């Protein structure tokens, strides 16, 4: 068993949650979502985002609109849906549950 695999697994688990949380604050381009994660020191590779965003959009938790840009191709501008907000609330609960549990366990 590889520690990087497990680490990747752990990160992948919360990625969806983070994306929804970020979009809950404001609408954003994928690159902006990435920036915020980088600021929070969450190490993600850009490519990871796209399949996730697509999945979340297909599940109707997110929606987007195309924005033309002066310097190059158009970009998708994502925002969270009502369904997405409800989903996010539930993930919030799970997150604090997990957080407390793990903190207790590793003591």
């Amino acid at each position, binding site marked *: *068993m590889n520690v990087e695999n497990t680490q*990747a*697994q752990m990160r*992948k688990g919360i990625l969806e949650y983070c994306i929804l949380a970020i979009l809950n604050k404001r609408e954003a381009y*994928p*690159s902006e979502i990435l920036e915020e994660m980088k600021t929070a020191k969450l190490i993600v*590779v*850009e*490519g*990871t*985002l*796209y*399949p*996730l*965003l*697509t*999945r979340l959009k*297909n599940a109707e938790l997110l929606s987007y609109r195309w924005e033309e*840009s002066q*310097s*190059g*191709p*158009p*970009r*998708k501008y994502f925002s969270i849906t009502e369904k997405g907000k409800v989903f996010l609330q539930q993930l919030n609960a799970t997150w604090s549950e997990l957080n407390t549990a793990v903190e207790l366990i590793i003591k």
Partner: protein
Amino acid sequence: MKKTISIHIQGFPFLIEEDAFSTLQNYMNRLKSALNNQEGTQEIIVDIELRIAELFTQKLSQSKQVIDEGDLSDVLNTLGDPSDYAEEDSTSKAPEDDIKEPFYQQDLSDRRLFRDIENSYIGGVCAGLGSYFKIDVTIIRIIWALFFFIGGMGLLLYILLWIILPKPASAIDRLKMKGKPINVDTVKEEVERAANKVSEKGKQFADNLKNDETIRYGANKIGRLFKIIVGCFLIFIGLSSAASLIFVAIGAEVGSITTDGIGGTSIYELSQLFFNNSLETTRAWIGFYLCSISFVTFCLLAGFVLIFELKNKWYRYTNFALVFIGIAGMIMGSISFVGAAKDYTIEGEIEKEIASVNADSLMINTITHDQQLNSEYTIKNDPTFNFFIDGDKVYDYGIPIKYHLSKDSLFHVVIQKEAHANSQQKAVKRAEAIQYEYTVQENNINLSTYFYYAKKQRLRGQSVRVLIYVPRDKKVYVNNELQNIFERKESNLTYVADETNINIHINDKRLDVSGKIRSNGTYSHYD
């Protein structure tokens, strides 16, 4: 100067160096295969291409209009490698091996029973059974261990199955073992899984060998099994000893030893007769109980500790204490025992002539009374017993009689009493304390069938003998039957007693002339 290739990404044109182009192509191919036709693959590819286009645009300017390797490298690093991000959904596939699937979903028709080597503890028999029946391996192991101890057939059956059941020899066998459907996908999966496991095991082994862990792990497993076996064994011993102890404890007071020789005496009473005094008796019993109870407790405790791997150091302390108590008990018992044994060492013998008779014949009669009824009635179906404790007296049945040649012409009857103690004086006193009843009327001697003494004299090898000195060729009648003193008939031959001491030699074997008065009053000659 370099060659460029003109491409467009999502409708946006770019000039890209030849080398960079192949790298890009390669990346896109890998991306496509990594995505593996997940839902929304097309969309994902479009998104990524758009992002690539965006990044490319940022790299370009008035002075730089072609994407080179360096640019591409930057862009691809930003995006990350497809293998890192593109297999999202494949990780949601559950690890197939050890998770129980609902029974009804399994197709049992193509299952075969194998020994599951990968998950084995010893030979994989239980693991294989677990796979086949879809029952947790541990439960099968527990059941097996039970079979092992009840009747012991478990071991044989295990070895039998170990020999009979085959190892899975290929991926297909492994699939059959787990009852999975056999098709290209599952076989591919299984091969990969096994290969991974092998390489994992290999790496693990190499790592552990460095830390000596596998060896310790294997040894731990064996040690664990061994501990469990020893633990069960100890508990078994503990329980059976406890059971015997309870029987003894009950029997010691209440029950009686009913052999032919002794009737109606309990172990406790006997022990009172054996030990020197009541203090010693008590000490001996306390010692015995301490020793046996601590032994039982020790076995049970040690058994549990081993089986359940209890770590609490108090268990160890308790066990030490128990051993200590047990030894103390043994010492106590031994002290009492040795004290009693010492009281056996010296023999004291006294004798008294009760009659000297001038007559042609001596008439010996045995007196039977039944001291239980204290009357002249005898109990009809009394078993022949030799030893009896009643109230505060000990009764010992059976009096041997020995015949000797009289030095003069008179019959002499002598009673000998013997007892043991740790000194001559005490031994003689003990002998004197023996009571034996008889009456003498001219040439009629009435002898009792038993002797007795007080309980507080204790069992110290007391005995009573009657010696009868017979003048040559005179007659002795016992219970009105003439007894052969000077000759003995055996298989048509007559042997004559010798001159000096009345011994009869038969085939070079020297026999004394003797007899015994039995408890029921009968007499047997040449006993």
